[in-house]
């Protein structure tokens, strides 16, 4: 069930990605249109984060390409913001919540300048949107996991971009926070923003997202949520990897073979 859309905002074309020679994504090919709340769904090790990182240009693909706004990511970085996984950084770093959110106000033109008053206002606004304004001056090491997650979200909001890529933004947040973040995301898509969210909970996924990208090393589905809700799609996504593909992946790793000539 892979539906290509006309005039896509993101076009992922035949993407194959390896980690240390072992292929983790095989020939991923899909497109996303503007203003959608997209869920990237799949079991552990399906390559969800890798896909996000590849779209973000953080990992070099073995083959294939990604176009955003019909351009290479490096040309339009100021129009895309990224929310990494919370565990990817050391939260004992000496910084306050506000310090982290202000990082979203980086500008290539004035990287050495101090933050302006406007930068600070936007950072506070972003913290306010995720209900974290009261914690602006708190050390990040003293925040709870859910609060740290919201700081990361606020940092991306502070970038004020059109496209957001979020890696597990609901991990470790409580139910009421999850609901309020979801409402925020829905509101943003109504304003015309496009949001890709890596999510691990299948139960809530169908409820949350307009569009689903279902992954399990290979692409299982990319279609409106309602269409993805079939037993076949779910079985293919969660029913274990294709055995032949896993065997080949392991072989390539063991023998150090190239995946492309």
């Amino acid at each position, binding site marked *: 069930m892979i539906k290509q859309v006309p005039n896509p905002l993101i076009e992922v074309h035949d993407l194959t990605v390896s980690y240390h020679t072992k292929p983790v994504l095989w020939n991923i090919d899909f497109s996303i249109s503007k203003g959608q709340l997209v869920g990237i769904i799949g079991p552990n090790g399906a390559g969800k984060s890798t896909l996000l990182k590849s779209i973000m240009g953080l990992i070099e693909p073995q083959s294939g390409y990604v176009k955003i706004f019909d351009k290479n990511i490096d040309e339009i970085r100021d129009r895309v913001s990224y929310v*990494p996984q919370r565990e990817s950084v050391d939260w004992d770093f000496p910084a306050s919540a506000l310090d982290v959110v202000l990082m979203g106000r980086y500008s290539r033109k004035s*990287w*050495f300048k101090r933050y302006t008053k406007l930068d600070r206002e936007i950072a506070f606004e972003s913290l306010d949107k995720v209900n974290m304004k009261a914690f602006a001056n708190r050390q990040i*090491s003293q925040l709870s996991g859910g609060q740290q997650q919201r700081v990361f979200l606020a940092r991306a909001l502070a970038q004020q971009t059109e496209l957001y890529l979020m890696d597990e933004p609901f991990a470790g947040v409580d139910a009421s926070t999850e609901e309020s973040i979801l409402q925020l995301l829905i509101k943003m898509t109504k304003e015309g923003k496009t949001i890709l969210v890596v999510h691990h909970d299948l139960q809530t996924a169908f409820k949350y997202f307009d569009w689903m990208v279902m992954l399990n090393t290979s692409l299982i589905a990319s279609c409106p949520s309602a269409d993805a809700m079939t037993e076949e799609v779910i079985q293919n996504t969660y029913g274990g990897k294709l055995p032949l593909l896993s065997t080949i992946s392991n072989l390539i790793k063991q023998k150090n073979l190239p995946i492309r000539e």
Partner: protein
Amino acid sequence: MLETLKEFFSFTDANVTFVMIGSILIGASSAVVGCFSVLRKRALIGDVISHSVLPGICIAFLLFNSKNPFVLLGGAFLSGWLSIIWVDYIERNSNIKSDAAIGIVLSVFFGAGILILTVIQHSGNAAQSGLDHFIFGNIASMLRQDLYVLSGMSLFLLIIILLFYKPFVYISFDRNYAVSLGMPVRFYDFMLSSITVLAVTVGIQAVGVVLMSALLITPAVAARFLTSKLNYMLLIAALISSVCCIIGTFISYTAPSMPTGPWIIVVLMLLSMLAVFFSPSRGILINKWRQQKNYRKILEENVLKLLFQLCEKTGFKEQEWNISQMLDKRNMGEQQLKQTLRRLEKKGLVEKKSAEWTATVNGVIIGKRMVRLHRLWEVYLTQYLKLPSDHVHETAEAMEHILNPELEAQLETILNKPEFDPHNSKIPYQDE
């Protein structure tokens, strides 16, 4: 001693003044650079670089037959960089992990360095004297011209960090995010590595190759104990390091046979230990004190609870209890009980009448609250976690000391103020 101290710090001797300024700058620059090494979790990289500059220095000396600081530091800089590249290469292209790669590269370079140094020393070349200062460092006996160069380089390092502070912080905290912002991260990586090599190259003049990584890392670690703000951390690290460099230099000024480096590091270690132990926010001592305080609070609350439970049993007909009655009810040391009672007496929470103790009005409030929280938590566990009633006591025993009034109010609301706990004991509310 006092005379030399006066002489040293009076700045009448121009030489001394230069040595002082040099020490401050070298100490500050290596500490500030070290903060970024620590924050990027690359603390050991300083160790590799410092051991690896030795062959560079020796080869440069052999090639140019000169001890011109630019020649020697140039050689040091090159071989320092080479070592980083090598470590990176091993990590990237093999299964060898970073710590092993560092171990390999460090010892190969240092071994080669010592080898070449020995050859030079036995060659009968008169110009070579002083090369061994690189092993343990010596600022005090340095030539004026060398000192200018080192101070200049330290100043340069500090200016670079000041200038690139923002991007350096970004890539230290979250490198991937920095890439996503479109920062030239590789360039900043290169910059950070280069200034680390440069800081080591400069710093070895003060403390020598073997101890250099301590000068890089220790001030940063100590400073982290004293502050949670990055700019203060850099400042405090620089301050600590400068002070230690001055002290070390002073010692080798008064006793020229004393090696500067080891003295600097010993003083540095002492100061850092002070920070680690006595830091008001994260220090080991304050942590112990907090634990002790919590422990005592728990004991006190337990004794008040005990008094309440004893009264409860008799339907509050009897309110005064002696030590052995209390010990019968609760298993604790007699000494401990007596000490706790004495502390409670001082706080006005219990009173002693002849050999018997009774809780005051305020004491009863606390004791009652403990019993209430204990029982409420037991109800919560049985209802919400579906635990059988004989599995809930232990957790409740700890929880009663943790729950604050807000959580207590929440608990009462969600449980709808239950009348009895799972063991059918009545839950005593404050207004009853």
